[in-house]
């Protein structure tokens, strides 16, 4: 498709602000003005709408395709949450209003949403307080590690290290590093669990935190998790819970009950807010009681008269990690989702998510290598090692799935599984959809043996064939340049 810039036509307009009804036109002094106007496309409204509507049709999405992208929890996003988020009262509210004298009473609806969401998340995770401010999961991780740093500093203890397993999300070590820590990586043992002996060796009074995903990125719940949290606590380290996989735990198991001190959630995963093509997400962070005083300001409080207000009066707070109260529009959708599901609905989410993943695992384990043959939780991780013998790699399998109308699973992650295929069906997908996916995966396993070239050519039915990523990286072309 042509770029929007290539559709430009001089003199066309897509939007007009009308005549300016204030006095004669004033001019800004020239020395402050740009010499060259921005080269933007001039188009009609229809041109623009058709262009982006047609672009939208080139995407796979949850609403159009099965999207079992492991670790991302691509569940259905109920439509009514979009409607709720578009209520003018929420959409038009200026974030500074409650910070003005007399403005708080005009923001009561939104403050109540924040307050009530925090309360629900506390109960779901067994934490004592939440900040709703982090703007995405990784942002929550950074906030969480900063809270841990503030806690240790307050105790007068200087700690240098954060421990992560080698199966962790890349965001864990990256967040720890940005917060100023050195990272120690613990290998995964042959049983698929973090190597406990190695962990004990690395644990010391210089370790500030241990960051774990639970169930882990292999989709496995480590039955010895309590032993790990106890060991860490004995060494004075705090336990960080990466909530990427909370979908499997809803109503079943709570990080706070296990002994985690800090938790981040991904509202766009577990609580069904749309992923938006890569955001906006929301990554609220929950903490146990001893960390609550360090949470970012402002915090929303409920006064004795039942009204809600912003409270800045926490002198140990780490400060501002976002300009305001988080991605409010996203938080609101998650709140609406929790209200409609309720206790039974949320518990059912975990049950069916785990059922669907185990079903995939059971049906495919004869066809693909299962590096850690265990009961899985919300996702299962296969390896295409068997198919590699015929020259078919995980990436080839992914491309063939695209041709068949399925978004591929996450591939090549976790890094510890070679040729990884990480499948997370989520609870909102029906048996029929999953069966169709399984049939295609079996077809691929057969073809890999019998006619591998067919898979290696894929995709053939998409708007583009396989793209040259080497060229893109060697000679980056990152924006359209006007022809002069």
């Amino acid at each position: 498709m042509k770029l929007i810039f290539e559709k430009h036509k001089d003199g066309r307009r897509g939007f007009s602000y009308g005549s300016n009804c204030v006095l004669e036109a004033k001019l800004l002094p020239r020395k402050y003005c740009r010499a060259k106007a921005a080269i933007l496309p001039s188009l009609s409204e229809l041109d623009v709408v058709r262009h982006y509507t047609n672009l939208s049709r080139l995407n796979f999405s949850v609403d159009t395709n099965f999207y079992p992208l492991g670790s991302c929890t691509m569940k259905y996003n109920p439509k009514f949450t979009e409607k709720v988020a578009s209520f003018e009262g929420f959409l038009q509210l200026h974030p500074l209003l409650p910070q003005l004298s007399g403005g708080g009473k005009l923001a009561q609806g939104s403050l109540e949403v924040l307050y009530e969401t925090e309360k629900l998340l506390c109960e779901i995770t067994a934490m004592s307080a939440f900040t709703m401010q982090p703007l995405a999961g990784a942002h929550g991780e950074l906030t969480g590690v900063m809270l841990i740093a503030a806690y240790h500093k307050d105790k007068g203890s200087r700690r240098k290290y954060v421990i992560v397993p080698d199966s962790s999300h890349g965001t864990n070590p990256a967040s720890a590093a940005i917060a100023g820590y050195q990272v120690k990586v613990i290998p995964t043992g042959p049983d698929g669990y973090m190597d406990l002996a190695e962990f004990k060796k690395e644990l010391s009074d210089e370790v500030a935190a241990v960051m774990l995903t639970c169930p882990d990125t292999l989709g496995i719940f480590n039955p010895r998790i309590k032993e790990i949290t106890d060991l860490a606590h004995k060494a004075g380290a705090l336990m960080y819970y990466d909530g990427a996989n909370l979908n499997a735990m809803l109503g079943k198991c709570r990080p706070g009950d296990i002994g985690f001190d800090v938790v981040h959630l991904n509202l766009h995963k577990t609580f069904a807010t749309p992923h938006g093509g890569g955001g906006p997400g929301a990554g609220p962070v929950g903490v146990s009681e001893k960390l609550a005083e360090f949470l970012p300001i402002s915090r929303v409080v409920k006064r004795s008269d039942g009204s809600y207000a912003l409270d800045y009066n926490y002198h140990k707070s780490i400060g501002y990690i976002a300009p305001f109260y988080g991605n409010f529009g996203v938080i609101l959708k998650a709140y609406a989702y929790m209200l409609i599901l309720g206790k039974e609905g949320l518990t059912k989410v975990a049950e069916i998510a785990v059922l669907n993943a185990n079903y995939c695992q059971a049906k495919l384990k004869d066809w693909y290598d299962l590096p850690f043959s265990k009961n899985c939780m919300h996702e299962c991780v296969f390896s295409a090692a068997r198919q590699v013998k015929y020259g078919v790699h995980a990436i080839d399998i992914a491309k063939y799935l695209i041709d068949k109308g399925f978004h591929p699973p996450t591939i090549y992650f976790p890094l510890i599984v070679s040729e990884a295929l990480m499948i997370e069906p989520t609870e909102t997908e029906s048996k029929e959809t999953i069966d169709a996916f399984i049939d295609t995966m079996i077809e691929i396993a057969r073809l890999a043996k019998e006619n591998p070239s067919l898979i290696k050519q894929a995709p053939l039915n998409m708007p583009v064939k396989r793209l040259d990523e080497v060229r893109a990286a060697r000679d980056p072309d990152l924006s359209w340049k006007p022809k002069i």
Partner: protein
Amino acid sequence: MSIPKNLLYTKDHEWVRIEGKVAYVGITDHAQHSLGDITFVELPKIGEEIKQASYCSTVESVKAASEVFAPLSGKVLSINTELSAHPELINQSPYEKGYFFTMEFSNEAEKANLMAADGYEIYIEGISK
């Protein structure tokens, strides 16, 4: 897999060619092969002091970034400026046009920590099993 006889090798798959006091440094054919198409290389600065077995460069493919470690200690004399525009030279000619930099090495004894061609050959056979 090409392993020229006149070079010395490290366990991290760097090679070094010694010409008097000057050493040429690059990565081996085995390394370029397992990295795949190389898209970018970050070289040390001229004049920088580097230490044997510590980080000196980064080499990148589309989906991986690998650290390159100095085979010997010493001072960087020149860098292969061709590589910034043509990182593919590392794939095409790892031992000649795709060298990374030259250095003046400072400690003759460190050579004992490197492998000769036959030793490296046995080493990579061992790790690819």
